[in-house]
């Protein structure tokens, strides 16, 4: 295993926002351990080079790139619309929010209008995606604690119902390729909306059941409370976003701050953590799910008729004027942004994805130092990443 990361470590600490180094206590040897790339808890191919003094973690270096395919370079070689299906494959748990972020960035670049109905559909699909993501993230977190499968299967039972809805609307469960610049690809039928209403009506019951099953669990509380603490000032400085940031007590939800789309019309609260630990991250996700149910109900009540595509939108021969734009949304994992530079041609000159999963891992080492090696798995699980987005 490569130790290059550990060697330079001593000079890199002073003066800036990092925890003090932990020195080995001198008894026994320091063990260097490569967790991953094929470790069951790494959600794919991801490696952590960990240095251990007994059970204690004294260094941790994440190693990326096993799933790297240079998505950004690929996108520079194809038309703007051509990369829309590829965004599905970034964070494959939530393809619809990826579509949305990309469409939003292009709309910022060109100034296209999105019809009312399409905005409502985007909100409905985005919030359903958030429910799927948060439920599964909690399931995976508990799975890593040893509750093999059961909570995850509760989440997946609900996820299947929602994925069936996605399939009915878009034709695919996961690789949806649904949003377009200036609207959505196909309209939803009244029957589909009724089906969504039925599923959404059942969701609060699922959340109650899920919460009662897990919240008071002794093992969960013993292993997560006070573990993996992330201080708020470090969280902001390190660019941590999404449920992670709010679990550290920072009130920053891009749905509120930017009110992109039509989020200013909905009433919802932003849950915040008080103890900044793994248990808070778990609870924040549960509470955010409940807020999403509220948004879904409001959106399903108010959804108007009309077109789902800007009639002036041009799909073929799409050439934005020269310039650049950065568009971002509150994805289920954090701030998902797209930065585009147009030179007036049919392909983007520069296409950049701001991946929340990668940037939320910046502070992984800080949270793990001094903890037991078994807790590293939990701390990592509480960040909630998808490697398709980390490595791009």
């Amino acid at each position, binding site marked *: 295993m490569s130790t290059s*990361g550990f060697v330079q470590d001593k000079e890199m600490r002073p003066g800036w926002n990092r925890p003090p180094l932990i020195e080995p206590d001198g008894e026994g040897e320091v063990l260097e351990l490569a967790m991953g790339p094929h470790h069951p808890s790494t959600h794919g191919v991801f490696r952590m080079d960990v240095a251990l003094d007994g059970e204690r973690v004294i260094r941790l270096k994440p190693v990326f790139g096993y799933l790297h395919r240079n998505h950004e370079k690929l996108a520079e070689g194809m038309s703007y619309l051509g990369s829309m299906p590829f965004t599905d494959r970034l964070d494959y748990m939530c393809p619809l929010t990826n579509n949305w972020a990309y469409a939003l960035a292009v709309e910022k670049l060109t100034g296209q209008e999105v019809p009312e109905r399409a905005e409502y559909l985007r909100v409905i699909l985005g919030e359903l995606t958030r429910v799927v993501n948060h439920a599964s993230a909690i399931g995976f977190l508990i799975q890593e604690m040893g509750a093999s499968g059961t909570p995850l299967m509760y989440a997946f039972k609900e996820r299947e119902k929602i994925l069936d809805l996605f399939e009915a609307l878009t034709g695919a469960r996961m690789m949806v390729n649904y949003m377009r610049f200036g609207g959505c690809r196909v309209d939803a039928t009244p029957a589909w909306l009724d089906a969504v209403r039925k599923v959404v009506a059942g969701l609060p019951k699922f959340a109650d059941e899920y919460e009662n099953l897990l919240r008071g669990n002794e093992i969960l509380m013993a292993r997560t409370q006070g573990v993996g603490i992330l201080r708020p000032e470090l969280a902001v400085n390190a660019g941590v976003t999404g449920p992670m940031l709010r679990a550290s007590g920072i009130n920053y939800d891009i749905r509120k701050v930017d009110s992109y789309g039509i989020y200013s019309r909905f009433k919802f609260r932003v849950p915040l953590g008080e103890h900044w630990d793994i248990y808070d991250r778990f609870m924040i996700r549960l509470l955010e799910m409940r807020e999403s149910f509220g948004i879904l109900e409001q959106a399903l009540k108010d959804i108007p008729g009309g077109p789902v595509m800007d009639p002036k939108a041009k799909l073929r021969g799409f050439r934005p*004027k020269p310039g650049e734009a950065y568009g971002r949304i509150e994805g289920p994992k954090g701030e998902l942004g797209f930065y585009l530079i147009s030179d007036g041609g049919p392909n983007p000159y520069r296409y950049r994805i701001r991946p929340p999963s990668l940037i939320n*891992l*910046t502070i992984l080492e800080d949270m793990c130092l001094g903890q037991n090696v078994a807790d590293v798995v939990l701390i990592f699980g509480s960040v909630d990443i998808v490697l398709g987005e980390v490595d791009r």
Partner: protein
Amino acid sequence: MKTVEEIKAAIEAAVPGAGVEIVLNPSVSAQHSLRLASAHAFEVATFLRDDVELSLDFLSNATGVDWPDKEVAEKVKVTRSVTRTLDGVEQQVEETVEETQKRVVPGCLEAVYHLFSVSKGHGPVVIRMKTVNRTDQVQLPSLTPVWRSAEFQEREIFDLFGIVFTGHPDLRRLLMWEEFKDYPMRRDYVEPDDFEYEPTAHDEVLKRAQEHRAKLAAAEMGQEGATA
């Protein structure tokens, strides 16, 4: 929130000689940016973060852009003396001709940062820095000590574009493997044909087997020679 002009004025008041330039963005998004001179970028970044009114405490996105050398065709008026035969006599005449000349605009690498304020809820403020050229002078000051979120993103820029961030605490390749030589996100990057080829242990074994066989054959030949 302040406009870019106001931010520029505030920076120049706080960091004298900062050399901030406004880069206009002609698209609808109107996200204009500020180009910082790399000599003062660190102080300016610290000011942007710590100023009470701006308090841009959150660096959201950091990325690179490659601008290769560009050949521009320009029409230039050239005056030169030509020998002409006028009225049967050879004369030197001054003549003005319009000519198309090709000029190479040197390229650069650029690092772009999108800043927001979590405490004030405003943004984005876009700052950018550019390198002197694309080959040997590709250093820029690292902003990781100011905003920790640049740590992995600057490593990614170093990895894919080849900008060297001075002052970065841990500048290694992020996505490509350490032995990789080129910078894949540059516009002129060419994929090698044998990009899947890697010498494997198998090659070594085959080579050793071949040597072994040759040795055996030689020994056999020698033995035969001895008995004959």
